[in-house]
């Protein structure tokens, strides 16, 4: 079985499913889509497991000596399994959950498109994961980006969704250019794009390549300064977010760093820079999460923060730790988004201030608690283990790094608590739960939550030394050794974070959407989006409009001016009889008239007159020329005489 089947089959099944769902009877559509999508992805999951066990590889030549390569290696294989598995759950959920709110389109064609694209999206992500060369990586990368555009802009009739989708795509595509750059550097240095050859890259090419990959990863994983696109991406349906944030798209950035870490690390500046970016993102994301009032945006900020932690691990030289955290994060983050989706459809709003659904959605609340605890990194959940390992790895790089990771952990505990309390906390007298509910979760949706919660719990096995050692060995590495102070400090910060939020809530000071403009700005990624809009997008658009005008008016004006000159010369040439002395006097007088005449005409017809061209000029010239002409032979004699003198002068001078 060719490894290509994994990504390609999903990329093909997606459109097929879309068509099938489109054709299916309305009543059976959800079933067809849910079953079809989940089955395809489940099969892919099994296939990924098989491929991982067999360490499959495959190649596909695309000419000019370039070859696409995929390999289910020790890192790629498990992540591929993860991607397929999470996508299976999300697809199942999506088929039931989505498509409710489009008026008159209940269950409509939109859902078929959504599920179809989700499946294809997973396929594209599998290509990213399995890629064994920069070209395959780029291909998968761009496909993921483009499909994310379609998914985020799913509600295309909506006024905002298409713009948000474009924002997300443009932002990540900008980073994606880094991959092309990296590919160029690699090809220039080694004549090949395969990962195995990248070790041979050195010198300037190495720096360019590392910078390119880092740029790509930072943009894709929504690290600072690219984080805001993730907020825009919230315009997409919840299940899209769930998939996007957990195991695909955003994960692609961190994954690329993990996968290429051995090569990247040969650039001495890579580790510090990655750590720096990771930490800044983790801390800033934490703050944003603490202030956000939008359910999904809170989670989005947390996503950035968590990927920041993974990048810290990669920068600290522990990609295996980052993989573990990636897996743990994928599981709980998918669930959190699915839960948020349930909550949002339940109240018909994204506003955290209007939820507190424990009373009405007890099971959802309970299941969500598992994920929230994982986010907060509370042992014995697996996520806590992986976060501690990040901390350990960070400490290996420098103690302050470890410390800041711990602080970030505290922040995540805080916003996790905040999310849980606001979304699924118990009803408070001052903020009654909304009734009646717009919609209750279906069983399938709860099942999806349950499966993911079970996954989070299962990952708790990582605390067992035998388990995590074997896992890490499978990844071909070892775990960083933890300092004794780390665990207590970290747990202490987690507890502090959780407690502070909890106590705020007790005092009724939680749940306010930040009122102050400054807070609002911080919640909106420190006003980074506005900065980008003001500093990048608007100037670009303004430049574009200006250039378009310039292009019309001035670049072309040279051509048009030449035409105008031709007109004047034409009059002069055919009116050469004017060169007599008498004629010149008349000519001067006439020039005055023409000037006056022209200025009147310009006044009358303005721009139209000035921008006119060859064809038009010819039309007018006839009239004017007739007036300037004499046709008198004796004047022609003077022309002949002058001509003789000119020719003679040329002969003498040019001899």
């Amino acid at each position: 079985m060719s490894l290509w089947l994994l990504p390609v089959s999903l990329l093909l099944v997606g459109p097929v499913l879309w068509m099938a769902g489109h054709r299916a009877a309305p009543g059976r559509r959800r079933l067809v889509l849910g079953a079809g999508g989940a089955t395809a992805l489940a099969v892919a999951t099994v296939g990924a497991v098989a491929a991982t066990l067999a360490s499959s590889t495959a190649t596909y030549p695309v000419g000019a000596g370039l070859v696409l390569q995929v390999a289910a290696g020790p890192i790629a294989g498990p992540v591929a399994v993860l991607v397929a598995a999470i996508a299976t759950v999300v697809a199942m959920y999506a088929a039931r959950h989505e498509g409710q709110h489009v008026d008159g389109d209940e269950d409509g064609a939109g859902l078929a498109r959504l599920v179809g694209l989700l499946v294809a999206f997973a396929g594209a992500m599998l290509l990213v994961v399995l890629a064994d060369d920069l070209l395959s990586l780029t291909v998968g990368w761009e496909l993921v980006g483009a499909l994310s555009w379609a998914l985020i802009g799913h509600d295309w009739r909506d006024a905002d969704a298409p713009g948000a989708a474009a924002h997300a795509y443009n932002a990540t595509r900008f980073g994606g250019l880094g991959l092309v750059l990296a590919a160029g550097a690699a090809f220039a240095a080694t004549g090949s794009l395969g990962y195995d050859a990248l070790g041979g890259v050195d010198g300037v090419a190495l720096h360019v390549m590392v910078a390119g990959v880092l740029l790509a990863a930072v943009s894709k994983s929504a690290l600072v300064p690219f984080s805001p696109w993730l907020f825009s991406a919230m315009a997409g349906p919840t299940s899209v977010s769930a998939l996007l944030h957990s195991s695909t798209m955003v994960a692609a950035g961190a994954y690329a760093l993990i996968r290429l870490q051995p090569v990247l690390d040969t650039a001495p500046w890579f580790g510090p820079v990655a750590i720096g970016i990771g930490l800044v993102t983790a801390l800033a994301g934490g703050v944003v999460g603490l202030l956000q009032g939008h359910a999904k945006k809170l989670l989005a900020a947390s996503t950035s923060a968590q990927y920041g932690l993974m990048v810290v691990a990669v920068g600290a030289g522990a990609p295996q730790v980052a993989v573990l955290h990636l897996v743990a994060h994928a599981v709980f983050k998918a669930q959190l988004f699915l839960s948020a989706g349930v909550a949002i459809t339940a109240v018909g709003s994204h506003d955290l201030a209007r939820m507190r659904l424990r009373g009405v959605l007890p099971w959802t609340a309970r299941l969500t608690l598992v994920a929230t605890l994982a986010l907060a990194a509370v042992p014995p959940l697996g996520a806590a283990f992986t976060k501690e390992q990040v901390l350990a790895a960070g400490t290996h790089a420098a103690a302050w790094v470890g410390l800041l990771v711990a602080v970030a952990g505290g922040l995540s505990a805080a916003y996790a608590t905040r999310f849980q309390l606001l979304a699924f906390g118990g009803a408070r007298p001052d903020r009654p739960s909304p009734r009646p509910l717009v919609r209750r979760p279906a069983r399938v949706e709860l099942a999806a939550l349950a499966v993911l919660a079970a996954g989070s719990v299962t990952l708790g096995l990582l605390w067992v030394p035998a388990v995590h050692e074997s896992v890490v060995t499978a990844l071909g590495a070892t775990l960083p050794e933890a300092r004794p102070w780390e665990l207590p400090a970290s747990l202490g910060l987690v507890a502090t974070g959780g407690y502070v939020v909890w106590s705020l809530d007790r005092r009724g000071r939680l749940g306010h959407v930040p009122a102050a403009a400054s807070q609002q700005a911080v919640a909106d990624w420190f006003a980074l989006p506005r900065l980008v809009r003001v500093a990048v997008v608007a100037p670009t658009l303004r430049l574009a409009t200006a250039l378009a005008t310039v292009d019309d008016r001035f670049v072309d004006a040279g051509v048009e001016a030449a035409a105008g000159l031709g007109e004047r010369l034409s009059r002069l040439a055919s009116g050469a009889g004017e060169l007599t002395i008498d004629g010149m006097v008349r000519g001067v007088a006439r020039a005055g008239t023409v000037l006056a005449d022209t200025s009147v005409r310009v006044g009358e017809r303005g721009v139209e007159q000035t921008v006119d061209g060859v064809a038009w000029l010819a039309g007018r010239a006839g009239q004017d020329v007739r007036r300037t002409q004499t046709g008198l032979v004796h004047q022609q004699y003077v022309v002949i005489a002058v001509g003789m003198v000119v020719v003679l002068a040329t002969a003498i001078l040019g001899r």
Partner: protein
Amino acid sequence: MTIVTVLLAAAVLLGLGTWGVLSQQSFVMIMMGFELAINGIMLAAAGVWRFTSGGAPRGQVLVIVAMLVMAVEAAIGFALVVAVYRARQQDTTEGIAELSR
């Protein structure tokens, strides 16, 4: 009488003819200008033949050719003057300026 003096005289005649051609309005007077100019040319040709060509026979032929030019153009010129006068009752350059632009 040297080549230079002959040529000077020829130049004066040619200049006078050119002046006439340019200043006269009437076709016939312009033609007189042509003839005067050719007059000078013939004088010059004869002078060159006499003094610097060693009497090359073709010099004399050149004078005859110039004479031919003069005669032929005079004849055809008169015919044209007649034709123009018949068709348009005009005999000056100012009178024939319809073809212009």
